[in-house]
């Protein structure tokens, strides 16, 4: 049981860290795509 709770805690820590990092980056960024898979040219984002 305690192992499962540890997993839940670690998961929440990673999620909070990642989303916090993303929020900080998005706040200071210009809205460009951070990551893209593959070498294809990036089209414009339609919902910005």
């Amino acid at each position: 049981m305690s192992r499962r709770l540890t997993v839940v805690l670690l998961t929440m820590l990673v999620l909070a860290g990642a989303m916090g990092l993303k929020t900080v980056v998005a706040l200071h960024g210009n809205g460009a795509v951070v990551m893209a898979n593959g070498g294809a040219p990036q089209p414009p984002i339609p919902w910005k």
Partner: protein
Amino acid sequence: MPGPLGYCVWLICTLLEGAVVVCAIRTQSLRRYIFLNLYMALLFLVDVGRYQVLSHYGMTSNEYIYFYYYSDTLLTIGLYFALLNLYSLVFDEMKVERYLRLGAILLLGGTAWFSYAVVQQSSHRILSHFGYELSQNLYFVGLVLTYALWGAILKLRETRARLVQLVLALGVYFSAFAANYALQNLYRGAAVLHYVTPLLGCILPAAWAYCFLRVSEETRLTPSRLAAVPR
């Protein structure tokens, strides 16, 4: 539309993605690194599909835009599972697969929920925006997980050279995108940066192809503490 240099980089990247799977099959590592190879195979197929759609409909067409961003979401989920494949290999002797699966599902579900919560408030095109948001959020989750895995590798004093190199390549890949994003914000509109993003896409397939081809499964790193024994 991309110029000749853009097409050249794209072609090299696609060939490298195919080379990863070929090298893995040649060195009989396909099953052990199944999610890494599935991700690369999917990436190869998506790049071929993107070329078809781009050449038929054009860069600014809705077909290409939606195909690009939906496939990108699928690929980022694939990359997430590839990273989990590396996690299960690093922790295989500790018999914690059940907990890794639980953590992976919780993390993916949590990221999807966070993405939906953001999109619901800010967009009327929920489905397509959700896909994009999920992809970008999973990138950050992947970034944090990769650094956490590198910390675990150092702590466990992992000596399997191939595994270490695969994780390091992933770390370099994620970090390079972060640096590229920072540069894009610093030098907005710099023409050279248009070629940098596709070039970064070549890092991971190139490093993994080299790793499968040149580093055997039995190769071990010599721990420094054993290499310099005090008398």
